[in-house]
């Protein structure tokens, strides 16, 4: 059985990659992907922690897995809205660079 530390480590690594990606990449599409990565890192952590309960008196508990499904649904909803917005922006401005979207600054 894969030890819990490995799972949490992978989750943390994925999350960090997501954060750094969202901060660094200038492409809107890449930022959306990075955000998905963060969500999935959280989902992975949920599933991993759920495995700890197996063998204890909460052996049948599937709370973590349920939450993972919810996280995936949230991610799907978010990507649907996000992609639509990106598409609209691209059509209007002919650019996917996030630095071009600064109309609302002071």
């Amino acid at each position: 059985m894969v030890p819990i530390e490995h799972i949490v480590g992978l989750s943390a690594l994925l999350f960090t990659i997501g954060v750094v990606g969202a901060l660094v990449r200038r492409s809107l599409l890449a930022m959306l992907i990075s955000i998905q990565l963060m969500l999935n890192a959280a989902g992975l952590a949920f599933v991993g922690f759920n495995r700890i309960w197996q063998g204890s008196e909460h052996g049948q508990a599937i709370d973590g897995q349920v939450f993972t499904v919810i996280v995936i649904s949230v991610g799907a909803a978010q990507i649907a809205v996000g992609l639509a917005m990106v598409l609209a922006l691209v059509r209007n401005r002919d650019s996917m660079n996030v630095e071009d979207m600064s109309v609302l600054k002071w």
Partner: protein
Amino acid sequence: MVDEAFREPLLRWIPLLPLAVALLHGISLGVLRRPWARGAVIAVSCGAPLLSLLAAGISFAHLVALPDEGNLLLDVVYTWIGAGLGDASFSADFAFQLDALSAVMTLLVTSVGLAVHVYAIDYMDHDERDDRGFQRFFCHLNLTMGAMLLLVLADNLLLMLAGWQLVGLGAYLLIGFWYRDATHAYAGSKAFIVHRVGDFGLLVAVLMLFWALSDVGAPTMAFRGMEAAFGELATRTFAAPDGSAEILLVDVIGLCLVLAACAKSAQLPLHIWLPDETASPTPASALIQTATSAAAGVYLLCRLSFLFAAAPLASTTLAWVGCCTALFAAVAAAGQRDLKGVLAYSTMSQLGLAFLAVGCGAYTAAIFHVVAHAFVKCALFFGAGTVIQSLQGERDMRRMGALRKRLPKTRFLVLTGGVLVLAGLPGSAGFFSYDEILLAAYRSSLPGREALDWMATATAVFTAFYILRCYFLVFEGDSHVEREVRAHMHEPSNLVLGPLYAMVLLAVFASLLGFPEFWGDRIGIEDSNSLANFLAPVLSNAPAGKLSERTEWAVIASGASGFMVGGLAAWWLYLRNPKLRARVSGSVATLLGLVRSGYGADEIYDRALVRPLLGVSDRVLHRGAEQGLIDGLAVNGLARAIWLLAQNSLRHFQSGMTQGYLVVTIGGVLCILLYLVR
């Protein structure tokens, strides 16, 4: 609780009927906006006082039929306020009690109230200033009367306070009845504000009394309980602020009550609302100045007579305030040109005498005086209203005269039931009640008693003078009425004369009620002065020291001579020798002007209170606090500070770089996490 035999379920209907009718009128006028037909208004509005009067009469009969030890009827509707447990519990009931004092006042209020309602049918019929005025007026009349009955019948001080405030509201509504006229609206507001000053006094007194009673372990507001627990309280003192003297607690409470009573009964220095009260329709004046507002003050003092009997300072203040008001108002009444102005100042003066009686500890005399005065003054107001109406609204007595030819019945009734009784014709109620008061003043041991005696005697002279002057100017002498008006003058209908007859009969009846024992013993009448004997058990009258026969004769002589001197002077100056009057009044014109304006009391109040208050309100509170501090500094200043801050520095955070925002967000989340994990 109370014994079954002393329950009287009729009592609650006496005040609640008029109040309920007022509420019905209010709903029809204010909520549904659909006025009733004239006949329905009359039937309901006059029906309620009639039923109240009947209920009061039946309850009174039951009260009289009680055995001696139970001199009280009680009707507990429900527990109004209940708090605490065990020994410290306090409860005030929504309950009514009928003892001798409240029985007399209830009969007075219901009978006068009914007469006023009937009189108002005809009087307000001619009123075309307001299309819904007819029903509105009856609504206010019912409300005022119900409020007064609530005050009179209340079983505890808190319920009485509620009635007390409602009476003030009723006065405000009735005085400002023609509110579209600015002067009337002003007079109404003035009355209300002065009444509020009195309400403040009563509220403070109630709170202090309750605090003191809880201190001696009897937290109660019911009159019976208060009187029982009062003995322990009567001698409590506390140190004056500078520690030089001990002040009686009851004196302080008493002085607060004096303030309250002064405002309601229009005594110096809170009398200023009454001269302006003449702005109201005459039936309203008749109700306010006889049975409601004016009588409420004296009733309060007599209801708490046990307190005043133990409070020498408060009693002295009362006597002096009353005596000064009596004399000053009597002099002012002699200078009035307005017919209703004379009556208003006369009300003040007569109530001043009642206050003097209370101050001297003669509570029964005070109540007798108030009762007699109510009937007399009501008859006078009805007469005055008839005169004013037949002259098409003219109130200046200089444009009246010789009305006896046109209004013979009115003149006869006003003379017998009003003028002569008020003037103190020997044998009338006015004479007897004045006698009682002067006797009480002789018996008392107040500071400056001599001066009080002289002032009371002078009041008798001026009373006879002003009321006979008023009568001569209106009904006798040469006519100064315009020819056109004179052609239309006629005797009023029976609907107007009926209440007048009733009041005159009651005024004559009052003289029988208060027939003094001094005369009764001589003529051989059993149980003379029956009103006083009836009232005596519930009032803490000062012990009536036996006066020498010489003093009694002296008092009677001074009353009679007051009537003679004042009456003769009025006759001489106004009928016999008007030229002399013109010469006299010409030589003291300035003085007369001062007297006519009520010694410039309005001007003094204006200078001393109103204008400084308005100045402070305008300059300090409005321009300083409101516009400067709140609007300027707090609201606009804060907005401007934020604007400046944002303009110069904070706006640069709004860079428009999405990932910059993201960095800040993540940094913030990290900080929170660090704080939580730490």
